[in-house]
């Protein structure tokens, strides 16, 4: 369907959300920095985050309303698809920066500090006792930066978490097939399972962090191994949280009877996102935990 005033095109009315989004994000970041600097919660941070939450519910809510009202034509649908695809690509590049840091540390900076290549004198004059082994369990300056006692093994929790995320990719695909086949029961079941698996993953991830901090001495400030470990798994965990929340919203919408067999961009976007989170985890499992 289309709006008559713009011929065959759909153009949204002026909207308050972008400006609210700006105020929300700016307030949040000022609040974050103030909190870091003061070492105690700045009131701007919760205020900002509340505004961000309001923004998401309000903005997406109005988009959902418009979509349910049948305002969107196939062209709008395609714009949304393109938007989501390239957004996911930008996220891939965000993770690429941290993977790049991991690879750089593993192939260059750590071996170099250990004297590899033409760096014999670097090694000799800076930290002659340092041995280049990954994971780094003795830092170059181990008095200043205390290394972890032990590395995180791949085969315990991380392997279970891998199985969980892979299974959740299957369940979300099952839900998708059910949606296309018009089987709402299986749809809701598949989605519900996916949300559940996402939550279990997060709980286990928290377990793992507690274990890392308490038992292994593996912390953010324990040198390059801990830095890359927590940066990569932390941002991944954050994305799982976002993904699970999004899946939950989609589940609620499904329960309300939204989406049809051939019109369900919202569902697909979230499913893509979930697969992306899954693939990133595979990279993490291989390069952070395993080899």
């Amino acid at each position, binding site marked *: 369907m289309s*709006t*008559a005033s713009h011929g065959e095109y759909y153009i949204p009315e002026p909207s308050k959300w972008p400006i609210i989004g700006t105020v929300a994000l700016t307030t949040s970041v000022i609040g974050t920095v103030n909190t870091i600097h003061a070492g105690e919660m700045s009131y701007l941070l919760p205020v900002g985050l509340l505004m961000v939450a309001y923004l998401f519910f309000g903005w997406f809510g109005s988009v959902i309303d418009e979509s349910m009202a049948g305002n969107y034509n196939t062209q709008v649908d*395609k714009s949304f698809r393109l938007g989501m695809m390239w957004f996911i690509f930008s996220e891939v590049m*965000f993770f690429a*920066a941290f993977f790049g*840091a991991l690879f*750089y540390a593993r192939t260059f900076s750590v071996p170099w500090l250990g004297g590899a290549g033409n760096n014999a004198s670097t090694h000799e004059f800076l930290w002659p006792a340092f041995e280049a082994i990954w994971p780094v369990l003795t830092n170059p300056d181990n008095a200043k930066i205390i290394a972890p006692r032990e590395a995180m093994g791949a085969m315990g929790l991380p392997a279970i978490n891998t199985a969980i995320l892979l299974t959740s990719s299957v369940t979300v695909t099952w839900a998708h097939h059910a949606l296309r086949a018009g089987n709402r029961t299986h749809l809701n079941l598949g989605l519900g399972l996916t949300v559940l698996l996402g939550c279990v993953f997060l709980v286990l991830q928290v377990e793992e962090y507690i274990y890392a901090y308490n038992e292994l001495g593996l912390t*953010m400030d324990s040198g390059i191994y801990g830095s890359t470990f927590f940066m990569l798994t932390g941002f991944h965990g954050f994305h799982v949280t976002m993904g699970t929340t999004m899946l939950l919203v989609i589940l609620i919408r499904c329960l309300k009877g939204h989406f049809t067999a051939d019109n369900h961009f919202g569902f697909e976007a979230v499913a893509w996102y979930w697969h992306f989170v899954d693939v990133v985890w595979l990279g993490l499992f291989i390069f952070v935990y395993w080899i």
Partner: protein
Amino acid sequence: MNAVVEEHHDHDHKPTGLGRWLFSTNHKDIGTMYLWFSFTMFFIGGALALVIRAELFQPGLQIVEPEFFNQLTTLHGLIMVFGVIMPAFVGLANWQLPMMIGAPDMALPRMNNWSFWLLPGAFGLLLASLVMSLMGMGSAPNFGWTFYAPLSTTYGPDSTDYFIFSVHLMGISSVMGAINVIATIMNLRAPGMTYMKMPIFVWTWFITAYLLIAVMPVLAGVVTMMLTDRNFGTSFFDAAGGGDPVMFQHVFWFFGHPEVYIMILPAFGIISSIVPTFSRKPLFGYSSMVYATASIAFLSFIVWAHHMFTTGMPVAGELFFMYATMLIAIPTGVKVFNWISTMWRGALTFETPMLFAIAFIFLFTMGGFTGLMLCIVPADFQYHDTYFVVAHFHYVLVTGAAFSIMAAVYFWLPKWTGNMYDEKLGKLHFWLTCISANVLFFPMHFVGLAGMPRRIPDYALQFAEFNQIATVGAFVFGFSQLIFLYVVIKCVKGGEKATDKVWEGAHGLEFDLPSPAPFHSYTTPPEVK
């Protein structure tokens, strides 16, 4: 039809008041805001540059403390790159892309507005740190626009953390803007407009948008690592923990080099629109232009370490990055060749946009040549971090990117406003700008070759004359821009009516629309043959 759509019928006129801008979903209004934002930042960044040049008028310390001098160069660079050149190009894209491809608007109009409004937030944060510094409350960022670790990590002032988040906001803005450009071009082209029929400006922006989506998140990654190194004890850029400050440079320049092409590819598109118009000939070598743009974009991902020759890397690395960088000269040369061939035997006239375009071709090429000198490893060992580099990038960025933006404004302003600008004043602006820019930047080559380091408030006596010449050029250049401001305002307010075609040799869908172009460019898609 439902209520929302029904309401739509009588809302087609322009919204009024402040809400028109705050809540806008119109590509033209958003484009206008981008352009005015960029213009404002241009004067702020320019004012900082004039303080820098005033300090450098004589050897010795005259006007500012060295600490503050560092803040000036840092903010000047950041503002010009992220606050002037990039927003101006996005503004031009907003205005032109829908008109050029026969669409009513951008594909995602609300996100478009958000992209814009994040910028005042980001620059508010950044400029606040400067204001605080002026009031004696701490220092603004002082580590150069490249914010190398450990200057920005271990030694960065408190304001660095605000700077980090300001970069995050700019990044979100750019990525959303780029996604919008891609969705618009892929999805909203008029029937019959195949990819290989798109105007070159559309092509260059299409490719630029990919560069943006690929590298802005990497910039976000690097500032995030800075944030955690500064505040949460990580050791990404700290060798004591197994990290490496050199890694900062790699990640930064992996963003940084494509970034410089983000700032020049749309300029190529603009020049490729203007030169054929005033030569009254079609663009020479259209498809080679497209392929050249694509290869430049590809190559821009594998040359980043030419900024790090003196930082050090294995010899094989130095050689690889040297040769890869040299390769870029080939597609760039193709472009210059095509522009010149377009002019060859054309019926040339020299209105202001054409003057800027021709100046661009000469002066940008100058900058390309000095780039080639810089990419020769042993030569760069001499030139690196001297004023020669400053000369190089001001030729490509000021007489390149900024000139193209000015050319574009003169070229399309009549279409936007429906009025012709004052040609006499435009020409005056051009000649003053062009001559003063060369007086300003040309001497920098010499002092650089003779060894004057960049980012230094004081210098050895023998560099004095050239620096004085540069400072004179800088002030003339700076104040000439007030003419530009006046011409633009005058044109917006009124003037001789522009025809729909505006220029005798103009081609393209935007010149089929009335002048000024209607609020929603195309409500039904035009047929493209």
